[in-house]
């Protein structure tokens, strides 16, 4: 069996294999269908585009640093995918679409929450490959995979040419660079296309969108306006989300007042501890300190206790894997948590799903 597989690889490498279905950048001669379903139009996500083509889809990944198309490839409807997924978000989306049977590889089982993936790992159906900096090309080639999903940082996947030559589809995922919570969630459409479940993905996204709007409406008429700080001290600098970032938008949608909302940028705002104390001494609520206990927070940031919000501290880090897998696909649950924290008086706010209050 192994011998046959090696022969197969050699045939592909020598150009004798049938690579008519290999992925390659789309050319102008591709038969792009004009009648793309309206639901498949990408509404919120900025880092990928979809087009219907003959017998499948054309997916274009946009590099968030340059705003230009980084990679485009065709995905055929009849082409089964066997995926090495190195990104937590897409593991979560594959789980939500009940497609974990397509996963043959992950980066590290310690970073997995999904019970299905863990179960399949225990059964030996899923293997650990490390991340893109530590993976083994030989192990990857000898796997049964044909697709690699990884978190894009603007650089090519290591050894991508060799892997693409033997038929691997390598897709950089930039969901983490989306600034609109619904933009992150919309990446499920891409996962839907890869798994052949585009209709389910569209339905799930539409449902999430509706729930997000509904949840957002809960705070429309509220009178309270709690002030919020996010982030923590790393070394001597406090990194807080910039005004156009995903978290700043979440705070705003949840009816929180964020001190740095007017500071432009999608990354982070850097402040000294003096500035944080000056700006946020009386801020009501502190979210996302990056650690799960006050002892750890005190060790990392001994001045934390001088913030009023130290007594109103919430984090998602007690179950980080759950957060990373599910929060992108289900932003309404994050929003619901934040509304629960910011406006406990609102009866419609659900119990906390991701977040927990840090008491000790």
């Amino acid at each position: 069996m192994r011998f046959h597989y090696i022969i197969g690889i050699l045939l592909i490498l020598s150009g004798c294999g049938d690579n008519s279905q290999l992925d390659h950048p789309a050319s102008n001669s591709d038969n792009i269908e004009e009648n793309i379903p309206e639901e498949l139009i990408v509404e919120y996500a900025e880092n990928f585009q979809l087009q219907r083509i003959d017998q499948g889809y054309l997916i274009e990944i946009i590099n968030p640093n340059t705003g230009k198309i980084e990679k485009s490839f065709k995905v055929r409807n009849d082409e089964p995918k066997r995926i090495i997924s190195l990104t937590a978000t897409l593991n979560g989306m594959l789980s939500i679409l009940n497609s974990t049977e397509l996963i043959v590889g992950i980066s590290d089982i310690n970073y997995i929450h999904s019970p299905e993936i863990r179960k399949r790992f225990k059964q030996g159906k899923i293997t650990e490959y490390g991340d893109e900096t530590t993976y083994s090309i030989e192990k990857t080639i000898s796997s049964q995979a044909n697709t690699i999903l990884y978190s894009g940082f603007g650089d090519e996947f290591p050894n991508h040419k060799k892997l693409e030559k033997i038929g691997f589809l390598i897709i950089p995922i930039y969901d983490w660079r989306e600034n609109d919570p619904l933009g992150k969630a919309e990446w499920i459409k891409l996962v839907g296309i890869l798994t052949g479940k585009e209709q389910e993905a569209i339905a799930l996204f539409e449902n999430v969108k509706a729930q997000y709007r509904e949840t957002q409406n809960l705070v429309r008429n509220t009178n309270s306006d709690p002030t919020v700080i996010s982030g923590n001290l790393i070394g001597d600098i406090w990194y807080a989300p910039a005004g156009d970032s995903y978290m700043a938008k979440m705070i705003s949608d949840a009816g929180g007042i964020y001190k740095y909302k007017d500071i432009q940028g999608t990354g982070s705002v850097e402040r000294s501890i003096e500035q944080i104390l000056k700006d946020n001494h009386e801020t009501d609520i502190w979210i996302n300190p990056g650690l799960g206990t006050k002892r750890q927070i005190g060790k990392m940031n001994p001045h934390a206790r001088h913030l009023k919000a130290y007594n109103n501290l919430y984090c998602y880090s007690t179950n980080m894997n759950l957060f990373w897998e599910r929060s992108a696909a289900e932003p309404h649950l994050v929003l619901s948590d934040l509304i629960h924290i910011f406006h406990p008086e609102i009866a419609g706010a659900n119990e906390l799903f991701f977040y927990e209050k840090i008491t000790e």
Partner: protein
Amino acid sequence: MKAELRNKVLLLAVVCALPAFALLHLLAGQVDIQPGEFYDSLVNFNPKNTNHLIAREIRIPRMTMSIIAGGALSIAGLLMQNLFNNPLAGPYVLGINSGSSLFVAFSFMTGIPLLTSDMGTITSALIGAFLFGLIIMSFSYLVKSHISLLLIGLMLGSFTSALVYILQSVSTAEELKAFTMWAMGSLQHVELSQLPLIITLFVLGSLGTLFIVKPMNILVIGEQNAKLLGINIRTVRLIIISITALLTGLITAYCGPIAFVGLAIPNLVRIIFKTQHHGTLLLASALIGGIFLLSCDIIIQVLEEYIHIPINAFTSLVGAPFVVFIVLKRLA
């Protein structure tokens, strides 16, 4: 006589410069605080007043820590250089900081509250520094070459780094994060309430050096000659290692590893004062070390608006070229 007078004048200048730099440091932060507010923050503290809070809990402890860390590391460096009769010795180069870091890493990674508490961290840092001090001293009996001993110190550093990496790989994300933050080094994590203990330990260590000024002066002529003059070498070595461990461990526990101060400042002091009298050298090292770290931290705060430079990186940026200069000077 002329040289002695010159050194007294220089010492007086350094003594006067220290409070001037300290005052400048107090006023160098990003938030505008008037001098009177520092006094008020100590005697009429209003916890609702943000400026009081910043002055009392950040500026004053940070300024005090700069002086103490600079002084302590410089004294430790001078002691090491004297003990090994090697101007390129220092707690960082000889792996004493690394030993301290290794034991702090142990205390962080165990997750046991007693060990991760302030006292647990200090105790671990002191034990690590002391043990590694003893190890490097043992090696000094085996190798006579200065370069070989420095290489052994570097290897000890690499060895402990490898152990720390292994510890990191088996630690939880939270423990790893807490340790990484500590390892970045910072002068501003100390609080006012911690200063009495830090000052007490620093003063104890510094006063301890008074008992070994005479033996240190004699050690310059070599151990064999010192023995002939009635110096109990074993006791002196143990006192030097103990004081170095106390001072290095104290600073490592509270500020993380800070490089090159202990190596560069005693050499700078020797160049300026041109004396082998260790009373003068110790006092000048403590004062100039304090001024040096105050200056580094002032520059860091001025640049903070544009770029953040960790204290450990800044001292290396300044210290490394100076050490190269010393090496070249010795070769010339």
